């Protein structure tokens, strides 16, 4: 059984070679075959692992690496299944999305090769339990995704976003490397099992925080989030869907993995995680509400959802610290389920937004409008995603958010006042996040799909091809399965969590099984809700039969010459919110004042855009300082070969002298 694991990488490498040589017509098919085959192999192993028998395998890594442990336990299995599902829908959608590029075969073969490697590396990141190998897989994942982002490399903005992503991912790798090397020096092993002994003997806080920064950069916790709003809009939509759906979740996977080895300091870490997460959620959704580039908006919304997942993890850790198994199950369970849910609705949203982009060639929602008439299916798919991501019943987002809410409310029963206050404030924060996400998504959906076309487009938009629609339907079916049968998923999660912590085994408490029955009734109530809507809809049809139904102009307040330009815009929709929080969402306006005495004013231009608070106030300030101080050292790089030879000699002499005087061993 476990030998199948080799099939995974052999298949992928074979596919890479095949993809180089097949004619352009079959490249997409070959890539689909490779991804699906890899998905089948690894998912098979993952399902086996979820069945209760973790599978493990040891590669001999030679003298440098030692034995490389490959293990698929329940946690890995959960993430592997999510990765495979999203990658498969992504590649089907992507093969339709990239149809227009059939005339540039080189670009396409590069793209599909990278996609295959991307999936391979993500799956392997979840399986490898050896620090160095993990870093290598992690690096392949970052590099391949970066290359996927810059598919449209002729555009300087895309390239810049790609480089930004590259740099930030390497800062992440630096922190991860520090973490693993630290672990190695303390325990003499790169294997993940070394965490157990390390955390057993030392303070847990600092090591966890190092990994939190490393994985948090990938996941997009503030203030490490600033790559997301650049990379996601730049990438082709199926790549942004997969990146936002899963690659970001691998940061969460890393945190889960490290958290599973923790032995003490649960409370402090849980509280830190909760505070950071609430702020992440609020910050993400606030920015999402004001942006007019709809893919950027989705990127910020990903940050928000990472915040929600983080809140769940924080509750779980606090539960561990207080020896409250119910809280542990609700918190971590909610977080794991939200990982799945978010990967579903976020990829759905990115795919449908990508369909809009493919048809209209703009990401600016203020230029769109009324697309529900020309692209009805895409509109409904986007609407489903928008409702689900707001955590509104009857869709799946509510299930995971309800678990997290329940965790918070259970947490109110604590004895410790500071923890109660934290829980209640988080409760309030989460409710604000929910309210803001309604505002954000009604704005986006309303501006893009409803009303009238705001500006003439170069092409008339049409509904996208079936190849792009079917993967989205599949995602919707999956989402409904979570909404209708939450108890099934909850059972799997309960199983994952019972073997999750390495130090102690926490059996499922009675309280959690209660919640599993509550989940079942919630799914019934959601169905009842749909039924109620159906009943009233039927009543409406019955009452309205035979009555006059006239179509007329929209109420214009007596104005008889309305144009589509007078429609309410997305910008004005969120303007009052942006004004209220202008200390966080920084708006920059560029315009020319009318000069005194200018009697015949010429045409003027007014632009306004929002800056990212952390990027604008911190990261840019720091990098500008760095560049400024680095300027003093430009004389080193003077272009004269003689000086470069001199630097070499100085270096050699320095080494020589230092060795003689025994400064360097």
């Amino acid at each position: 059984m476990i030998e199948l694991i080799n099939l995974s990488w052999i298949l992928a490498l074979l596919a890479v070679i095949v993809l180089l040589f097949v004619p352009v017509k079959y490249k997409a098919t070959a890539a689909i075959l490779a991804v699906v085959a890899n998905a089948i192999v690894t998912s098979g192993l993952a399902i086996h692992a979820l069945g209760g028998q973790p599978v493990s395998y040891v590669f001999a890594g030679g003298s440098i690496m030692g034995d490389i442990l490959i293990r698929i336990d329940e946690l890995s299995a959960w993430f592997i299944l999510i990765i495979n599902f999203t990658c498969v829908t992504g590649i089907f959608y992507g093969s339709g999305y990239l149809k227009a590029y059939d005339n540039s075969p080189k670009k396409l073969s590069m793209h599909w090769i990278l996609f295959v490697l991307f999936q391979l590396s993500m799956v392997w990141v979840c399986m490898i339990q050896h620090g160095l190998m993990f870093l290598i897989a992690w690096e392949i994942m970052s590099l391949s995704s970066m290359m996927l982002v810059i598919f449209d490399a002729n555009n300087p903005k895309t390239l810049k976003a790609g480089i930004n992503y590259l740099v930030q991912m390497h800062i992440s790798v630096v922190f991860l490397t520090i973490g693993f090397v630290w672990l190695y020096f303390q325990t003499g092993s790169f294997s993940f099992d070394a965490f157990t002994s390390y955390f057993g003997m030392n303070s847990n806080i600092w090591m966890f925080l190092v990994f939190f920064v490393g994985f948090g950069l990938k996941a997009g916790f503030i203030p490490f989030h600033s790559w997301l709003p650049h990379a996601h809009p730049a990438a082709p939509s199926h790549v942004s869907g997969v990146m936002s759906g899963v690659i970001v979740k691998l940061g969460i996977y890393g945190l889960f993995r490290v958290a599973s080895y923790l032995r003490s300091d649960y409370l402090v870490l849980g509280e830190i995680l909760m505070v950071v997460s609430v702020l992440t959620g609020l910050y993400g959704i606030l920015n999402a509400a004001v942006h007019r580039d709809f893919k950027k908006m989705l990127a910020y919304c990903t940050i928000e959802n990472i915040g929600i997942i983080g809140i769940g993890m924080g509750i779980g850790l606090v539960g561990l610290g207080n020896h409250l198994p119910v809280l542990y199950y609700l918190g971590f369970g909610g977080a794991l389920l939200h990982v799945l849910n978010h990967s579903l609705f976020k990829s759905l949203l990115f795919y449908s937004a990508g369909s809009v982009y493919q048809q209209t060639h703009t990401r600016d929602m203020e230029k769109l409008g009324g697309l529900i008439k020309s692209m009805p299916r895409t509109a409904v798919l986007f609407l489903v995603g928008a409702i689900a991501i707001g955590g509104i019943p009857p869709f799946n987002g509510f299930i995971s958010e309800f678990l997290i809410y329940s965790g918070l409310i259970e947490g109110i029963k604590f004895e410790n006042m500071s923890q109660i206050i934290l829980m209640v404030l988080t409760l309030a924060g989460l409710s604000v996040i929910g309210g803001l996400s309604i505002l954000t998504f009604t704005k986006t959906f309303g501006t893009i799909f409803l009303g009238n076309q705001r500006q003439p487009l170069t092409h008339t938009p049409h509904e996208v091809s079936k190849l792009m629609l079917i993967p989205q339907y599949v995602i919707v079916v999956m989402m409904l399965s979570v909404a209708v049968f939450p108890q099934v998923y909850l059972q799997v999660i309960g199983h994952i969590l019972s073997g999750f912590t390495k130090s102690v085994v926490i059996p499922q408490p009675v309280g959690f099984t209660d919640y599993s029955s509550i989940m079942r009734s919630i799914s019934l109530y959601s169905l009842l809700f749909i039924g109620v809507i159906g009943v009233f809809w039927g009543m409406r049809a019955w009452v309205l039969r035979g009555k006059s139904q006239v179509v007329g102009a929209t109420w214009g307040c007596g104005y008889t010459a309305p144009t589509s330009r007078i429609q309410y815009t997305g910008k004005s929709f969120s303007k009052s919110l942006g004004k209220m929080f202008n200390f966080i969402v920084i708006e920059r306006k560029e315009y020319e004042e009318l000069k005194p005495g200018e009697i015949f004013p010429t045409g003027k231009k007014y632009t306004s855009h929002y800056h990212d608070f952390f990027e604008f106030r911190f990261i840019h300030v720091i990098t500008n300082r760095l560049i400024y101080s680095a300027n003093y050292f430009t004389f080193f790089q003077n272009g004269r070969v003689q000086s470069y030879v001199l630097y070499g000699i100085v270096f050699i002499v320095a080494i020589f002298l230092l060795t003689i005087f025994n400064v360097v061993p």
Partner: protein
Amino acid sequence: MLSLILILLAATFFTGIIIRTKSIASGRKGPGIFQPLKDVMRLFRKGAVYSETSSFVFRIAPTIYFSSVFMAMLVVPFGASKGIISFNGDFIFFAYVLGLGKFFSIIGAMDTGSSFEGMGASREALYSMFAEPAFFILMGSLALMTGHTSFQEIFATLHLGSSITYALGVLAAFVFLMIAMIENSRMPIDDPKTHLELTMVHEVMILDNSGFDLGLILTAGYLKFAIYGAIIFDLFSGSISYGYAIPLFFVMQGFLAFVVGMIESFMARSRMNHNAQFIVVLSSVALLIFFGALLVSGKFI
């Protein structure tokens, strides 16, 4: 089941009493208290006019809005008797089900492509977003006081014993009443009687609705008032026997309607940009209740 019938009954006269109070306060005789109901009946008999810009979203939005209020009504208990839907954490379901209705009423307004309706929609989204934390902090504090997490259990075990708890009860009633005013777009957030589109919130969203759809939206508004009235009643009902509780329920609903009418008669609407501040104040009142609840439960150190 009991709560469902009582709320439906209360909804028939709640808005009527508000209007009657306002009429009398302004020196007019005013319509009968069942006039709103008759208005809705008349609307149900009418045909409909749709905007040529609108799509199916506009047609289905009022139905979903009404259904969401209907579902929310099923969750509310009456004293110790459960609502039809009751489970631990049902108040989250309550808030989020109403959220779906809000979502659809907003996109329904945006579907007309009007220059005004989006304005109302954006205000509605903003104000209800600000009202969320007040509701959740308040329910959290009640959960803290009683140790239970479902509407029915919270209200069944909520005993207002000491003077502090009475103060908390009054504050909580105030917060719920204000949330009801925000949810129904009433004074001091919004003036349902205004005639200028630019200053409307809720009214401007439904400018293009007509006939059955408009009737549904109005009915949903009446129901919402009765729902929040029932919640406020539940705060104080404790374990009174039904013989007293049911008449008391109607007295309380009537009184609340009277209070709403008086507020609307003697208060001017806030300026638009002060509304958000006003609603955030509700959250701080809710926090006050929370700290009171900490005191009462002896966890305040």
